C-alpha cells in the first residue's frame, strides 16, 4: 500500500514516536528519481558560496570601521552609509536613478507592447526585414552611438535632462523587448480576441480585456529587465548629464574611485545602496520572471 501511495506521489507519514525503517529514511534522503540529495545540494551550496562571497565582502567593507581588518562584520558601523548618503549625495543619485528606472520601465513596456502586438498580429511588407533589423540592432554597442546621440539630444535641448537618459535607455531596450512581447502575444490564441470582437469590443478594448491579463508574466519580465538595465547603466548618464544634481547611482559610485586613492568603505556602502533595489525587484518578481522568459522563448 505504501508503494502504491508513493507511486501516486503521496508520502506516508509515520505516527508520532515511531522511527521509520532505515530503507524509508534512506529513500527520503534521495529525490524522486533516486539521485541522492547531497549530489544536488552540495554543488548548489558551493555555487551559492561562490556567488555570495563577493556580496559578503561588500557588506563587510560597508559596515566595518575604517582601518579594521576584521573578517566578521562586528563591531559594525553606519559611518560609511551616512557618508555616501549625506556627504556624497547618494540620496539624490538614488532618486534620479529611480526616476530613470521607473520611466524607462514604463516607456519600454508600453512601446514594446504596441510594437510586439503589431509584429504578432499583423502581416505587412518588410516584416521579416524589420525583425532582422531589430535583432541586428542588438550588436551595436551604446558607446558607438554616443556622439550622434549626444548631438541629437543637444539639438533637442535635452542634454542635462533625465529625459535624454530615459529615451536612450528605452531605445536600446526596445528591440529585445519587442521581440519578447511579440513571442508572448503569439502564444495567446487569436480566437480569444475574435470572440471579444464578436461581443462588440473594439480591437483596443478586446486587447485590454482579453490579451493584456494573460501577458502579465511577459510584461513583468520585460519591465524588470528594462528597470535593472537602466538602473545599472553608466555610460549614458555620464555623457548626457552634466550637473551634479542630475547624476545617477552608477556615476556616483564611480566618483568614489579617485585617481590615486579610494575610500573602500564608502565604495562598498555605495555598492550596497545600488544593489538593494535590484535585489528587492528580483525577490518579488522571480516567479513571473522565470515563467515570462520561458513562455516567450517557446515561440518566436
Amino acid at each position, binding site marked *: 500500500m505504501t508503494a502504491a501511495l508513493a507511486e501516486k506521489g503521496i508520502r506516508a507519514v509515520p505516527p508520532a514516536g515511531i522511527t521509520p525503517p532505515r530503507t524509508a529514511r534512506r529513500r527520503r534522503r534521495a529525490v524522486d528519481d533516486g539521485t541522492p540529495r547531497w549530489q544536488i545540494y552540495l554543488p548548489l551550496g558551493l555555487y551559492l558560496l561562490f556567488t555570495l562571497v563577493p556580496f559578503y565582502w561588500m557588506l563587510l567593507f560597508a559596515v566595518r570601521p575604517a582601518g579594521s581588518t576584521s573578517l566578521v562584520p562586528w563591531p559594525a558601523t553606519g559611518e560609511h552609509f551616512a557618508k555616501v548618503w549625506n556627504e556624497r549625495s547618494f540620496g539624490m543619485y538614488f532618486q534620479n536613478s529611480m526616476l530613470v528606472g521607473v520611466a524607462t520601465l514604463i516607456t519600454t513596456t508600453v512601446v514594446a507592447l504596441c510594437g510586439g502586438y503589431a509584429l504578432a498580429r499583423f502581416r505587412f511588407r518588410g516584416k521579416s526585414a524589420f525583425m532582422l533589423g531589430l535583432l541586428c540592432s542588438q550588436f551595436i554597442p551604446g558607446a558607438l552611438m554616443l556622439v550622434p546621440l549626444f548631438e541629437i539630444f543637444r539639438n533637442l535641448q535635452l542634454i542635462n535632462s533625465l529625459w535624454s537618459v530615459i529615451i536612450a535607455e528605452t531605445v536600446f531596450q526596445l528591440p529585445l523587448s519587442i521581440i519578447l512581447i511579440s513571442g508572448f502575444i503569439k502564444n495567446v490564441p487569436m480566437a480569444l480576441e475574435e470572440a471579444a470582437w464578436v461581443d462588440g469590443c473594439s480591437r483596443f478594448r478586446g486587447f485590454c480585456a482579453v490579451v493584456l491579463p494573460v501577458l502579465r508574466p511577459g510584461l513583468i519580465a520585460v519591465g524588470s529587465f528594462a528597470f535593472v538595465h537602466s538602473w545599472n547603466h553608466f555610460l549614458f548618464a555620464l555623457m548626457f548629464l*552634466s550637473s551634479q544634481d542630475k547624476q545617477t547611482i552608477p556615476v556616483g559610485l564611480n*566618483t*568614489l574611485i579617485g585617481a590615486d*586613492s579610494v575610500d573602500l568603505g564608502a565604495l562598498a556602502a555605495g555598492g550596497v545602496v545600488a544593489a538593494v533595489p535590484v535585489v528587492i525587484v528580483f525577490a518579488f518578481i522571480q516567479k513571473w520572471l522565470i515563467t515570462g522568459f520561458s513562455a516567450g522563448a517557446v515561440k518566436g
Partner: protein
Amino acid sequence: MSEPTNPHRRSRLIAATALIATLALTATACGDSGTKSGDEGKGQGKIVFWDNNGGVRTAVWKQIIAAFEKKNPDIKVEYVGIPIADVQKKYDTAIAGGGLPDVGGVGTAYLANMVAQNALEPLTDRIDGSALKGKLVTGMVTSVLAAGGDAKQLYEVPTSANQGTLWYRTDLFTAAGLQPPTTWAGLYAAADKLTDVESNKFGFTLRGGKGSIAQALEMMYAQSGIDTFWNGDRTTVNDPRNIAALEKYAGLYKKATPEADLNNDFVKMVAEFDQGSIGMLQHNLGSYTDHVKAFGKDRIDGIPLPPSTDGGVRTVVSNPVDGLGLFKSGTNKAAAWKFIEFAASAEMNSLWNESAGAIPANTGTAGDKWITDAKPTKAAMDSPNDPKTKIVQFPYYLPDWNSITKADSEPDFQKLLLGKTSAKDFADKLADKLNAAQADYKKHKS
C-alpha cells in the same frame, strides 16, 4: 485606369515621410563643436567647471568655489564632478559634440590629445600677465610644456603633481630588524625577509593589472639610473640595464608578492597593502591618506625610490601633472580665467594639495606647515631639488602613449609575470611600438 488612392493610406505616408525627415534633420543638424572660438565675456555671470577627479576632491573644490564666489560675487561657478576613469571619454564626446565647460581639470596624460583637437586656449600670455607669473614650480611647467607638444605654449596651469613613492611598514621593518629600504639591495633583501607565504605574509605588492606599465617603467629607470627616455629617436626602454632591472622587478612576483597581484590595479594593490600583512608598496603620494587611515602615521612611511647606486644619481620619472585648462569654446573666458588664477593661488593651491596629499605647483606654498608635517610629501618635494636627482620625461605628447602603455602592453606584462615571455622580449616589443609612434609623431609635426 489607375486604382483610386486610399486617403488614410496617403495621410499615413505623408506622416511617415514627415517623421523621417524630422528625425534626419535632427540627427544631421550641425551643432557647434567643442572647438569653436568662444568669447571673453564681461568677466561676470556663470561659468561651468568640470573637476577631472570628481567625488574624491568634491569637498575641497566646493570650499575653493565658495571662497571664490565670496571674493567675486558677480561670478557663479557650477561644479561638475567627473569620475577620473572616464574623464577623457567625457571630454572627447564634448569636443566632438559640443557642450564643453569653461574651465576643466586636465592632466598631462591626455593634454596632448586635447591640444591636438584644438580644444584648449593657450595660456602663456595670460599667466605672464597675472599674479601667477614666476610662481609656478619650474619642473611642473617643463612637464606641461613637454606634454602639450608645443615648447612655447602652456595649455594648462599646473596645480599639482605626484611622485612615485616607496611606502613601507615601519613596524614590520622594526620587528624584523630591517633598515628602511633606501638602497635597491636593501629593498630586495627586505622583500625576501618579510615574506612568509604559509602565513600569508609578503614583502612587496606589485601592480600586474591596469596601470602596470607606468609603475614598471618607474622601477626600471630608478634601478638602471638611465636619465633620458630617448636616445636620439630610439627609446631607452629596452636598454640592457633597463631589461636587467625589469627582470629583478618581475622576479618579485609570487616569490615576495601575493599571487593575486597579477590582476592588481591600484585600487586592489592599495587595498591589499592596507590589509596589513605586506611590507612594501610602490605607488605614489596619492594613497598617503589611505595608508594613514589604515595604519596611523606611526606605522607607515614613504620615501622616494632608492638611487641607482649607493650615493649615486636618483632617477625619477615625470609623473602626470594635474592642472586647470581654459576651453576655447567658452563664452565667458575672462571670468573663467579669474577662477583659474584664484584656484592656482598659493592659499588655494595649498588647501587643495593638502587635501589630495599631492605636491603643490605654486612655489608660495613651500613653507606651509602641512608640508613640513607630512614627511613623505616633503621628501617628494625636496627630491627634484637635489642635484643628484634626474627626471626622465615620459613622452605624454605621443597621441598613442596611452594605448601603447595600457591596452597594448598590459597583457604582455602579465605574460612576463607568468614567465610566458622574457623581460627582453617584453621591452623590445614595447620599444618598437614607442619608436614607431615617435617617428609618426615627428612626421606629422614636420
